[in-house]
């Protein structure tokens, strides 16, 4: 995994998750962060800090990113979305602006 293909997500407690950019860009917000024409600090350093999101939730979110990347492109799957088991995480949808599973992420 080369460095320029990855992005580092940092939780409120300071835990770092290094994941693929492709996966992170499932979130429209992170996509904007990383592709916005002017270079914000996040684009420069390749890391995003979430001071309001706890490690457990951020981990779930990262899992969801990968699940979405793999299965959500319209393919049928038996596997349950990690998303569905945690209603409390739904707040993340608002902040991260993620489309519901089964649809391609909006631009």
């Amino acid at each position, binding site marked *: 995994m080369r460095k320029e293909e990855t992005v580092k997500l940092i939780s409120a407690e300071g835990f770092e998750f290094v994941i693929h950019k492709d996966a992170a860009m499932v979130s429209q917000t992170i996509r904007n962060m990383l592709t916005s024409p002017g270079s914000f600090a*996040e684009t*420069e350093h390749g890391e*995003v800090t979430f001071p*309001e999101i706890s490690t457990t939730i951020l981990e779930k979110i990262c899992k969801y990113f990968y699940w979405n990347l793999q299965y959500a492109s319209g393919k049928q799957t038996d596997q349950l979305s990690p998303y569905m088991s945690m*209603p409390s995480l739904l707040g993340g949808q608002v902040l991260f602006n993620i489309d519901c*599973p089964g*649809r391609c992420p909006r631009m």
Partner: protein
Amino acid sequence: MSAQKKRNFQIEAFKHRVVVDPKYAEKTWKILEHAIHEIYNHNASGLSFEELYRNAYNMVLHKFGEKLYSGLVTTMTYHLKEISKSIEAAQGELFLEELNRKWAEHNKALQMIRDILMYMDRTFIPSTHKTPVHELGLNLWRDVVIHSSKTQARLLDTLLELVHRERSGEVINRGLMRNIIKMLMDLGSSVYQDDFEKHFLEVSADFYRCESQEFIESCDCGNYLKKAERRLMEEMERVSHYLDARSEAKITNVVEKEMIESHMNRLVHMESSGLVNMLVDDKYDDLGRMYSLFRRVQNGLVIVRDVMTAYIRDTGKQLVTDPERLRDPVDFVQRLLDLKDKYDKVINLAFNNDKTFQNALNSSFEYFINLNARSPEFISLFVDDKLRKGLRGVSEEDVEVVLDKVMMLFRYLQEKDVFEKYYKQHLAKRLLSGKTVSDDAERSLIVKLKTECGYQFTSKLEGMFTDMKTSQDTMHGFYSAVGHQLGDSPTLAVQVLTTGSWPTQPSATCNLPAEIFWVCEKFKSYYLGTHTGRRLSWQTNMGTADLKTTFGKGQKHELNVSTYQMCVLMLFNNTDRLTYKEIEQATEIPASDLKRCLQSLACVKGKNVLRKEPMSKDIAEDDAFFFNDKFTSKFFKVKIGTVVAQRESEPENQETRQRVEEDRKPQIEAAIVRIMKSRRVLDHNNIVAEVTKQLQARFLPNPVVIKKRIESLIEREFLERDKTDRKLYRYLA
């Protein structure tokens, strides 16, 4: 799927710390305002997107959306005012570049701001019906920068100036131009139209008005059209390079109007280079250009077509009424065909095979061909010439081409029945003299006539072919039945012609030589023996004969002559000298025919088997004839043609006319009866109209003749006049 999910779960807002700090909103806004300043100052790398996004998100969430939005408007307006100042300060050429650069920067900044404020864009703005961030940015740019008092006029002038410079041949920065125009379009189509396009079209109209005036004074038609075409292409190219595609129709419209429409008449009629001259000189390129340009404007093609039609009618009229041309019918028709070919080619190459032009051409031909009453005769003579010799050794396809062309002329004829009359005569001559080049070609033409005019038109012509075929069989039968009785008497070939099918004249039989008469009698008894109830009469004026002749020095020749000539020559078997009177008495050939046949026997150089005294061109009643012992010829077979008038003489023509008129009478009557049978009651004008309609496939009946026929029908009690309204006719069953 998303809808389903939303039904299954209750979405709760993310749990946030309750805002306690009363200055929370003010503080948060300060952070965002600072960020916007930094973005406009190209200094965003120190900003954290996540933090800004979260702040904007929280502000909206905690009902400070209104503050955020109005703050954004104020801050952006402030920056745009700064930008506007710097653009206004730019000098000369730099103005557009500065504008372009600032526009690009503004776009980028706007994009970043929108990304940060995405949450507001998605939730707060739709619910409060405010303008979305991106649109807001464009609107502010429009109002603050583009519509600033100093920039607005300057921008327009600069753009129009650049266009003008490009029109006069200079090279301008098209990329920059495209960007600026694109900017105007991005700001909304109304901005593009009001701030640029409207003025652009006005200025263009002025420009082309002047230029076309200048061109038309100095150029001939061809060159003017070239220039107009080039200008039109340039404008289209300009649109494709840096204007809105929707402007194309508008600007081309301006060019068309100024350069073509307002000078249309003058161009078409331009002396020594206008449409007529182009047609005369076959200038397909120029004509094509004229067509494609004039097609763009209303009524443009109508003018072209009208002038062309008038010209064709004029040339055609000259051609068909020129007495010189009437001498040679084949040449006459050939010229018509050449004329048609010429304009077919023009329409094909230059006028895009336009249907309306083809129709105009056809109607012109129809108009002038029928100006000459002898056209039907000449067309038939042309066919006759082609089928006698013109098509010898020509491939089948080429024959078809010629025949198709003839059919085309035939279609233009109004008096198709006259053509039929002549065609019948000429065909009969061809068949009886065995002169026809190809049976296939003959039949092919008949099929064409049939498809054109129906079965009735050709049934008699087909009957002629059938007669020829049956006659062959009859002759076979005759010789196998009675051949042994004939010994070495002359060989006879009889063609039995059905009365009615053939254009026979009331026969003036001549006295046949005894040996021939005997064979003929034999045939007569054979034929009447096999076919009861028929009557045979001999058409001696239509036959031919082959004579084996021995001349003074023993030279032998086979003479191919007509029946009349044969009768004359046979007289010289017994004597060397005969006077005209003696010949006339012995043969009883009608005087005019006899003169013609003696003329061809005695007066044609190289074929003069008779000598005449005195030597002269014409035959007089007191001439004497001698057998020409000294006759020589390179050929064994000598064909002695009768001096046939190729085209009819005036009296003959009158006669044919009269016969045609006679033939028309029953047809007109039949048409009247057909119409009245179905209509029962009809007034005079309607009858004339309907009869004309029914018969126009064959000829154009004269209303006076129709009136006479109606009167004759009333006399014979097919019709009666209405008791009260004298204009009405009633059908009497």
